[in-house]
């Protein structure tokens, strides 16, 4: 009576935030800076995987260049904070101050820019039946890299350097939480059901009065927007944006996360984003420590690029033994909004 009932998802996010923050305090020092970078990176990949899941898993389309939209977000927001406004590096602390607020607006603008680019790519290719989106997004991923390589203003092949480190555990958690809530609310609305019906049977969806082109484009643009936000956060975490960060391989990694988690399951995307980001880091360290050896006359060095080989094997194993991914299409209770069932 009279108590405010917080939504379970908010409670879970708050607990996660408080626990990680306490563990990372200098006095406690269980999670050091290195771990925090991986956690932050995981959270950013949660956004990337969950938003690609909206396109590939919920709406049933096939995008191969999700990282291209992250590049747009990274460069647009990085340009605003670093080159245009020349914001100083923020003071460490928990509070959202003026520059941090401006940074958050820049991130959203980066997302909107990615969404616009998503519209330019999605509208022509999603109007046609067939795999045009896969081809277009694959091409887009390469084109954006070439373009970024050739714009001197944003550093060309050297990349955009000296981006202030605005992405903190706090700001990243905030954005990730908001985007997960946004995606959850979308999927569990009439608009989301329209998208799901396209995945299930596009023709039947159209003949239920759904403007399928509109909803495919809508899902794609929202997904691109989220990827743009994630790209902006990543740039302000790593303090640089580089054309090679957003090529085909990182896009494939996000795709593997969506498949491994279960196409259509946001819970699965979140879980896979965390586990695979940690796995990537673990493998990177492990591979770096393997000394080179000789097979016959050949010098073999197992470098970090072998991480992708592991993922390819992982993907094959998933396709062979658990085609529906970890979660299938199921969602954790935390992500399901209860509907009042009237008798």
């Amino acid at each position, binding site marked *: 009576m009279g108590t405010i009932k917080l939504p379970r998802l908010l409670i879970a996010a708050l607990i996660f935030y408080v626990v990680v923050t306490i563990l990372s305090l200098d006095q406690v020092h269980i999670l050091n800076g290195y771990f925090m970078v991986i956690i932050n990176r995981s959270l950013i990949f949660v956004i990337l995987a969950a938003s690609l899941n909206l396109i590939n898993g919920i709406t049933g389309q096939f995008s191969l260049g999700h990282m291209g939209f992250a590049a747009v977000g990274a460069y647009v927001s990085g340009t605003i904070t670093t080159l245009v406004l020349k914001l100083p590096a923020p003071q460490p602390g928990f509070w959202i101050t003026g520059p941090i607020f401006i940074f958050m607006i820049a991130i959203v603008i980066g997302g909107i820019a990615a969404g616009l680019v998503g519209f330019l790519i999605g509208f022509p290719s999603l109007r046609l039946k067939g795999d045009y989106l896969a081809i277009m997004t694959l091409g887009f991923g390469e084109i954006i890299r070439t373009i970024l390589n050739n714009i001197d203003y944003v550093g060309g092949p050297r990349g955009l350097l000296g981006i202030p480190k605005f992405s903190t555990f706090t700001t990243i958690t905030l954005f990730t939480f908001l985007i997960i809530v946004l995606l959850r609310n979308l999927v569990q609305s009439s608009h989301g059901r329209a998208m799901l019906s396209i995945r299930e049977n596009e023709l039947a969806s159209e003949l239920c009065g759904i403007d399928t082109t509109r909803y495919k484009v809508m899902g794609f643009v929202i997904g691109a927007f989220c990827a743009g936000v994630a790209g902006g956060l990543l740039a302000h975490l790593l303090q640089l944006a580089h054309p090679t960060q957003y090529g085909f391989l990182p896009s494939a990694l996000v795709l593997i996360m969506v498949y491994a988690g279960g196409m259509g399951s946001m819970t699965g995307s979140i879980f896979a984003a965390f586990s695979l980001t940690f796995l990537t880091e673990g493998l990177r360290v492990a591979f770096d420590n393997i000394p080179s050896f000789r097979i016959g006359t050949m010098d073999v060095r197992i470098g970090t690029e072998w991480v992708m080989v592991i993922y390819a094997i992982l993907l094959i194993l998933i396709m062979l033994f658990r085609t529906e991914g970890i979660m299938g299409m199921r969602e954790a209770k935390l992500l399901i909004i209860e509907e*009042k069932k009237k008798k």
Partner: protein
Amino acid sequence: MSALLSIQGMSHYFGGLKAVSDFTFDVPEGVIYGLIGPNGSGKTTTFNLISGLYTPTTGKIFFQGKEITGHRPFRIVQGGIARTFQNLRIFGNLSVIDNIRVARHYTVKSGLFTSLLRLPSFLQEEADVREDAMQLIRMFHLEDRAHDQAKNLPYGALRRLEIARALATKPKLVLLDEPAAGMNPKETDDLMGLIRRVRDEFKVTVFLIEHHMKLVMNVCERVKVIDFGETIAEGDPKVVGKDPKVLEAYLGKRGAEC
């Protein structure tokens, strides 16, 4: 009675094959109209033309006096023509209630932002949509399975779900493509009763395809018989049922399969 649907000189070719040949007919408002003919005679193609999946090679389609030839399928549905499919097209991984709510979607007013923020008006509308869907579900005796994935339902229930889903688009005309296909005689009987109820309670016009002569003659108030894309007869089922050409198409060498 005025014509709800009016087809004028409609033909359709698949390459060299003339699947529909110069159809001209009216479906009057409020009737149960039957299109019958042996397999491969062009019935489904006729429905595909009316629902906008194909554009007729020649001819025109009018609905409520307005031409709809060449309109996109979802626009035709929104204009008031819903349909079911001969081979079921269910949203298998969605629940029964969600199958129906998808069909109700285009009448939903809550915009994207209202929905994302789950504003009170959105919640109210969701509750209304849920109640509407449950009403249909009860009418089609699916209430026990309302929250199950549709793909787990038995065949007869899926046939009913498709009709319920078509009605959720609030149509004025429903096209039912072989609604009794795969049903046993008892289910077929129940279905005929249901089709009459649908017409009376939803005030819709029903246009159905069948190749079972008996079902058509029982439930339809007007029929059109076709074979090889050609019209053989049209009119009162009692009269048409005695037409020698119709009897030949049905009792001739291909009669056995009907």
